[in-house]
């Protein structure tokens, strides 16, 4: 009875966002494998063709299969952003908890540094990074990781501040435990819920930033595609109401808004 109640309560809450995230990751990994055509091949003489049985989402401005390109684009957007988010959140969370734990000078230095980073608009930092180091996958991922680390740092520092005051941290410190153990074993397990929700939010931000950069033409460069660059290259099709431009835009919306709503729903039900 005692065990079944919390599980019964927790499972439906955790399911929706987790399932949604798993679905997108699965699509990102398998998408390129199930794509009907190679992404760069011109398969039709009609440009901006409407939905048909041969090309489920029509063709783009060069007559390439939109569905195949969309699957490749989704894959790169989701994977790139996922890697950047994981990097941002692991570094941010670790540093945040450490700052809360150490306090004093460590906390002040880290917090002021993070405040400095967070004060620059994310799109501007992204543009500067690309302008300085050129546009490549590692530069984009690292730039996104750096841009979203301070947010994660702040959230986890606030969460950890209330935990480090608890007596069990005091007793672990009195025992003489190392910082690494305190952060990973004593504090982190007590804030997994809010931290995971924060990871989801950072992922949404990252998708938005990458799509913005690509839409501006400084993100992923051809022949690589992502959702932002797909929208941009087919922008002309808007006049014809072509699915080539609507499909990637809609995918960005479904990805970000869907995850956001799922996370919100989780918060409300708690």
């Amino acid at each position, binding site marked *: 009875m005692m065990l079944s109640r919390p599980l019964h309560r927790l499972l439906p809450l955790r399911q929706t966002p987790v399932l949604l995230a798993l679905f997108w990751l699965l699509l990102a990994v398998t998408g390129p494998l199930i794509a009907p055509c190679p992404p760069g091949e011109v398969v039709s003489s009609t440009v901006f063709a409407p939905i048909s049985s041969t090309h489920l989402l029509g063709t783009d401005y060069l007559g390439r299969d939109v569905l195949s390109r969309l699957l490749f684009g989704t894959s790169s957007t989701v994977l790139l952003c996922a890697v950047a988010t994981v990097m941002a959140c692991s570094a941010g969370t670790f540093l945040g908890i450490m700052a809360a734990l150490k306090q004093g000078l460590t906390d002040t230095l880290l917090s002021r540094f993070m405040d400095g980073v967070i004060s620059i608009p994310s799109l501007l930092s992204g543009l500067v990074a690309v302008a300085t180091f050129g546009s490549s996958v590692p530069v984009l991922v690292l730039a996104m990781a750096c841009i979203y680390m301070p947010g994660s740092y702040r959230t986890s520092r606030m969460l950890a501040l209330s935990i480090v005051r*608890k007596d069990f941290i005091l*007793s672990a410190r009195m025992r*003489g435990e190392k910082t690494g153990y305190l952060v990973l074993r004593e504090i982190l397990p007590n804030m997994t819920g809010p931290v995971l929700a924060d990871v989801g939010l950072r992922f949404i931000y990252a998708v938005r930033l990458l799509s913005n950069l690509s839409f501006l033409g400084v993100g992923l460069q051809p022949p690589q595609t992502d959702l932002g660059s797909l929208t941009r290259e087919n922008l002309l099709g808007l006049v014809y109401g072509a699915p080539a431009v609507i499909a990637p835009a809609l995918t960005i919306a479904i990805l970000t808004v869907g995850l956001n709503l799922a996370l919100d729903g989780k918060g409300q039900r708690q």
Partner: protein
Amino acid sequence: MSLLPPTAPPPLISVQNLSLTGHRGRGPETPIVTNVSFNVAEGEMLALIGESGSGKTSIALALTGYARQGCRISGGTLRVAGHDVLHMNARELHAFRGMTIAYIAQNAGAAFNPALPLMEQVIEPALVHHIMPRKEAVEQAIALFELMALPSPHTIGARYPHECSGGQLQRIMAAMALITEPEVVIFDEPTTALDVTTQIEVLEAFRLAMRQCGFTGVYVTHDLAIVAQMADRAVVLKNGTVQEEGSTGQILTAPTQPYTQALVAASEPHTRNHDPAPASAPLLDVRDILVGYGGTTPEGRPVHTILNQVSLPVLAGETMGIIGESGCGKSTLIRAIAGIQPWSAGSMMFEGQPLAADINLRSPQQRQHLQLVAQNADLVLNPAMTVQATLRRVLTFYGEDASDNAIRHILDMVRLPAALASRLPTQLSGGQKQRVNLARALAARPRLVLCDEITAALDTVVAAAILDLMMELKRELSLSWLFVTHDLHALRSVCDHVAVLYAGHCVEFSTITALQTAPHHPYARKLEASVPEMRPDWLDNILRQHGLKQDKSGPAPASGCSYMPRCPVAAATCALTPPPVWQAPSGAFIACHRTAQELS
């Protein structure tokens, strides 16, 4: 069981088959209170006795027609002073709550609005219900302040809540409840959060108010000694059901139900410490510790002192008790010994080695041999770690055997079943958590365990079991305990030596046997006299002896005895020079200007 004679008037409060249910989050409904029935006659005081979770507060709240969030009144009838409480609409309830029934909560400090002067809040019920004009309400409030023996009753209403002590706030809250002259007053553990010396003042004030205003009362408490003083009849509750009902005298002297018997037995003072510690070299020697805050004066002393040159030897294998009211510095002393509170002067020796002020500068062995058990087990156990993970970490950290067997052995030591090892702290009861808390300290194989009010948050029966356990472990493991408490009964039953702390000074240091014989420091005597006894006439005797006193308080003299403002035997010299320490014939060390003959 007293059967009402046929001519008696109907009871003022009548509760029939009351049931309450509640649920956590979206979980299923579980019963909190089932089938509780009792009557209270007019002018009578009924005590609801029970440990935490017994449903006593839920019943008290139900009398006002209120159920806490997530709870609901699922059945039964409630009649209070002619009102059918469960079938009133919002407007009727509003009038009923202000004028017919009043509620005095446990923590008055949290019940007042910190941004409003007290008078505004005290007269608010009278104004809201349009009982009397403002001027009259203020006069009424001042009369009640006088009745409650509050200092300067004419001006205290202008103060803000933070300018009053906890005991004063509790009495002001009683004045607020009584201003509408309700027929029924509910007291929900009004003195539980107070020190004994303050509690007695509040109890005296309540007693007088009861006599003068003649209301009918329901007194919710877990303390049988208070029941003996305040109530005419008592209802004993356990897990939401009535265990026993009867007159206070019968419940306290001849309980019939096993649960009541256990409750009475746990409340009676008795000695647990049967074999006194052998005389030996001090295990821990605290010398002239000075702790303070707020910068240093030119003489190198802190501006505000918390502990003023406290010295304390703790012998190997003994239990040392430290007692004092809240704010006397007893927790600070424990924290200083534990190495988490820096001190500005003095020294400590542990196992013959000097003990550094900072825990990080102490040797691993010193850390292992000196363990702290904190008051609140909810905060001490990591909610994300199972019992065995917590214990295993301590064992592996100190390089001890961390097998399942070793963990089972430690759980066995604190009398917990091995099946609990895989549970999380949230799945344990309060007493079990405190045992795991003890086990965590014992896993380090300590020589000295510092206990900071470890029984304060526990129910009487559970606390008694923890004290028993402490003494068993002392015998089995030849441990020393440093036991900090404000509960004189607990102190007497387990300790070999006792230090009485007042305002950061050790005013008396004696063996437990010397504590039974005069002379005593005036504060120690006051402390002793304030502990409620189970005799029903105890409070009346005290009231008869010296009447209702107003609080004596004032700033402590800059140099001189810090107890002087409250001391009944203070002389002129007390304000000028610090009191000398002398040894009484009983062996006790007392810090007072008065001589042994004067204090006996």
